[in-house]
Every structure is written in C-alpha cells, then in structure tokens.
C-alpha cells in the first residue's frame, strides 16, 4: 500500500494518546522505572519517557512474554481435563514509542515463530498489536542498525511511524498499514496533509560499522577459530543479552504441579546458560562459555540468514549496553569481519 504522509502537531500527540485510551486500547509505552526505561502499560501520557535512545528491555514481550501460560490441567476421578490457551483473553494493544530496531525485530521473531510450526499464541498476540514506531533522532556508540540493513527511520514493522521534525516538536506520521489507518481514522482531525519533507535530515546519524556480507562469509570459516575464547573470556554466562534482545526467541517449557492441578509455561531461555544444552547423560555439547558466545553470533549472523532469510540482530545495541561484563557484540562482529580466514 502507498505510504500516506501526514503532519501531527506536538500538542496533538497527547490528544491522539487520549483518543486511543478512550477507544479502550491498552497502551504500552516506554516508562521510567528506577533508573531504567521499560515498556509498561500506561494511561498517562506524561509518564512516557520520550526522547530516550532506547528502552532497556525490548518490546518483544508484547507478543512473546517472558512467561506464557500455555495450558492448565486438573485430574479427577473422571479423568484429566486440559484447558488450553484462550486467545480471547488477549487485549488489543497499542505499542507506543517503539524504535525502528525493535519494529524490525518483530519481523525477525515472526520468522522464527512461523518457520515450520505456526505458533498460534505468538501470532494471535501479534495480530492484536498496533505498532506506533518513533524514528531515532539520537544514537550512541552502541547503535549499529545501519550495519544490519536497518536505519533510524526504518518503516518496517510499524503501522504508523512518527518522525520528530526538529526542535518545533511536530511529527511526520507515515501511515503504513491497515492497522495504521484504523488509528488514523480515530483521530483524522489531528493529522494534516504533509508536503515535501526530507525525513532523512531529522534522523540520527548511525555510521555503518561492518560489512554484513563479508562478516557472513567469514563466519562460515570461523567456527573452529581460537579467537572465540579471547572474544568471550570475560562473559559471565548470564542471560541479559538474550533477554533484552528484540530478536532472541529461545524458550524453555516448564511444568508446575500443585497436587492434582498444574500449569505449563513457556519461559525465555538463553544460549549463554550452561544448562541450555546440557544433556540428560551429563554431556554438554557447549561445554564452555566461548562455545556459547560462538552460538549466539553464529545463530544471528549465519544460521538465521541461511534458514530464514533474515538476520537475528537489529543493531539496537541493547545487549552491549546491558552486559554486566561489558561484552560488546559490535566489537566481536568487527573483529570477525576483519579476520583473515
């Protein structure tokens, strides 16, 4: 569909927020909590942490919660009864203030959740989300979206993408999808037809840091490299990188039984944990941290493009910002790209 471009004035943004609320939409937006910014349900426009480069946790939880209750069961004299996931319980959600590196991540997650098996719960959740993306006017040294095919004004994955047009605080609104039109239709009066606008002039500068093609080619020959040890020696083996990542989709299934009743959950999991690949026999094919760091990078930059035709990294830089040991994925990628393999 053609992109419909409009201008929305600074003051009208709050009115749009209120109209969405009045239309019974549940809004998730970046909200400050302790010293961090996370996506949270909010009814209060003033609470939105506008202008932050990036939320500390990605928006993937909207469709892929850290803990998803898949089913409940109970046993009685009559047998076993199972109550499956009820998609009727999923609310209509508006995701407000998402950065393009997160909206792109939705596509990467969707590729995984629809690879062979079509994941009904994930798809159901996503079908009820309207994504209001906000372009980036600021970036930091951890950002590298342009190195993985993205850009700070990327429309992919947004239903409407807002771009702040300089200091007057007005926004360009690119209405991109049917869901975007539905939001637009609720508040037509606040949008004005846009003239010629050079959006690029208002976007953050994010330099390209490595060549993706060279990186992927090198990775094919890099598997046995001794460099993985040097690249990962300081890794502590926690799951921060995977859990803040907009594209990491690994999960674990856990059952909880309480007497004759119980539930089954899908929980986030991380390839950085030693337990992730531990076999029942006691053998662990990824026995040391360097093998786990290798897996993280190979999966995102080699296996995913091979099998799903998408990369597993959006260049948001969250993993590096959040790492307690200052493991920096960009440094690893650059050094692999520069390696003579």
């Amino acid at each position, binding site marked *: 569909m053609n992109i419909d471009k409009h201008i929305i004035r600074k003051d009208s943004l709050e009115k749009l927020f209120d109209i969405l609320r009045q239309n019974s939409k549940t809004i998730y937006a970046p909200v400050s909590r302790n010293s961090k910014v996370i996506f949270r349900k909010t009814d209060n426009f003033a609470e939105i942490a506008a202008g932050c480069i990036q939320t500390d*946790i990605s928006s993937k939880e909207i469709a892929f919660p850290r803990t998803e209750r898949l089913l409940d069961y109970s046993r009685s004299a009559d047998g076993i009864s199972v109550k499956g996931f009820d998609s009727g319980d999923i609310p209509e959600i508006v995701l407000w203030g998402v950065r393009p590196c997160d909206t792109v991540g939705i596509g990467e997650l969707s590729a995984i959740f629809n690879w062979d098996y079509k994941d009904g719960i994930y798809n159901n959740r996503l079908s009820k989300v309207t994504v209001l993306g906000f372009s980036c006017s600021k970036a930091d040294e951890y950002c590298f979206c342009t190195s993985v095919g993205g850009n700070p004004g990327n429309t992919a994955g947004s239903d409407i993408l807002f771009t702040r047009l300089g200091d007057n605080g007005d926004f360009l609104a690119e209405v991109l999808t049917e869901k975007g039109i539905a939001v637009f239709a609720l508040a037509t009066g606040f949008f004005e037809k846009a003239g010629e606008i050079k959006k690029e002039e208002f976007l953050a500068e994010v330099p390209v840091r490595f060549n993706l093609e060279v990186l992927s080619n090198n990775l094919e020959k890099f598997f046995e490299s001794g460099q993985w040890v040097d690249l990962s020696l300081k890794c502590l083996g*926690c799951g921060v990188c*995977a859990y803040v990542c907009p594209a990491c989709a690994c999960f674990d299934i*856990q059952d*909880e039984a309480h007497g004759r009743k119980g539930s089954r*959950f899908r929980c986030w999991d991380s390839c950085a944990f030693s337990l992730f690949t531990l076999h029942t026999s006691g053998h662990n094919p990824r026995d040391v*941290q360097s093998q786990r760091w290798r897996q993280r990078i190979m999966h995102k930059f080699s296996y995913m493009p091979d099998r799903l035709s998408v990369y597993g990294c959006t260049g948001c830089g969250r993993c590096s*910002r959040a790492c307690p040991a*200052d493991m920096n994925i960009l440094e690893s990628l650059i050094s692999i790209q520069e390696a003579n393999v």
Partner: protein
Amino acid sequence: MDDLRKRAKELLETSAVKVVIGYEDGSGGKTRTLFAEKPEDAARLIFDSRCVMNLAAYVTKREIKEKGRMAIAATLPVMRSIIQLASEFQVSNDNLLVLGITPESKLLEFTDLSEVEKFVHQYQIEIEARNKEMLEKLEKMTPAGRWKFWTDELSPCIKCYACRAACPMCYCSRCTVDFNQPQWIPVPSHQLGNLEWHFMRAVHLTGRCIDCNACFNACPLAIPLNLLTKKMIEDVKANFGGYQPTLTGEHLMSTYKPDDKENFIQ
C-alpha cells in the same frame, strides 16, 4: 597505577603467574575485565573509581582457572570475596596471588592469603547510610506494605540471572534454580517464581555475602535486590556477632554451636 602495571608485567615475564586479572578501559566510558596473559598486556591495566565490578567472580570460572596460577587486582570487596572463597576451598595460595589495592588506591602485595585476611580484618563491613535508611524504612512497614514493596520491585525481574553470574559467591556448578527433577524453585518469572528466586539467593548468601553490590550493579532493571542480602548482614551481625570472612572456615551460618541462641524457633 603504574605500580600495578609494573608488578603485573614482572609476574608475567617471570611466569610467576599465567594470567593477571584486572581492569581495562571498556565501552561507553565503562571499565571491563582484562585477562593479561602476555607481559605487554599489562600496559592496558587501569585502576580508578569506575572499577567496581567484583573480579573475584572470575577466579572460580573453569576457563580462567585452567590457564594456570592467577594474580588478581583486588580492591577491599574483592579481597573479602577471595577470603570467603578460600574458606570454601575454591581458591588457595597455590592458584591465586592477590595484588591488593587499598581504599587509598595504594598497591599491596601479599605473600599469602593469611596476610590478605589480616588486611581485610582491619575494615568492618558497613552498609551504606542510604541503604541502611532504606532497610529501616522497610522494617517499619506493615507486613502488607513490605509485601507490596517486594512484589512491586521484583515484578519486572526477567530471571536473566545476571545477579547470580556477577556474584563471586554464586559459583555452584548447578544452581538450585536449575533443577527441574524435582523442581525446587519455580522457573517462570511470575510473582512466586521471582520471589522464591530472590529469597532463596539471599538465604544462600547469608553469612557469606560480603556486600560488594555486584548483584545490584549487574541487574539490567536496577532492582534493589541487594537490600535482601544487606538485611541478612544486619540480622547476622545482630544475632550471631561479628561479620567477617575468615580463612579458618568458621562459617557463621553453617557451623553448629551448642550455645547458639535459636531464638527464632521459640
């Protein structure tokens, strides 16, 4: 910290140690861990007020231990951790040399861990005034208020276990939370799962935590989980006397004494 660089270089040149664990400049104005293995690596060592990560978390890691004898640039919290780890038979004079950094940033070299212990015992573990105030505030709350405080604070926990990974005392090769047959702690990061995880961790650290704040610093959500271990430190101090890691292995909470008060049972 020229002294540190010089000493690290010597130790590597003479093969007195195979690796020196210290700090170097990292990304975004942060510092990170340096594993200096060649004499020339020592030039990258730095020490300043940003160097707060507890490097003792690395001395129990297999990949590091396998390199051979280690030296570690150790601030007071790191030295405390090392004494506790030594008392739990995780490190010894054979595999670890401590390059102490005093609170005045002066380099000290210890010939063995008993000297480190002596140095460490000159300083009491004191909880920061701000956190002490917070603990008192929590103490004054009603049980319902405290319950709300903790359920609110712990609700965003994503169970990434960065707190565990950054903690030198969390070196178990298999943590209680990783067991699923039987499952001791609910794995999902729902309310009960999060509460049980953090309470279990605090209890396992009781009498062992040396209050370095590594868990809090590692948390991607800035959850004040260190208040739990701080509370345990205060309780141990109040009920069981002093609070210092010791090489003799007299662990405050896991050594049975016939004259223990056991007031909590009454």
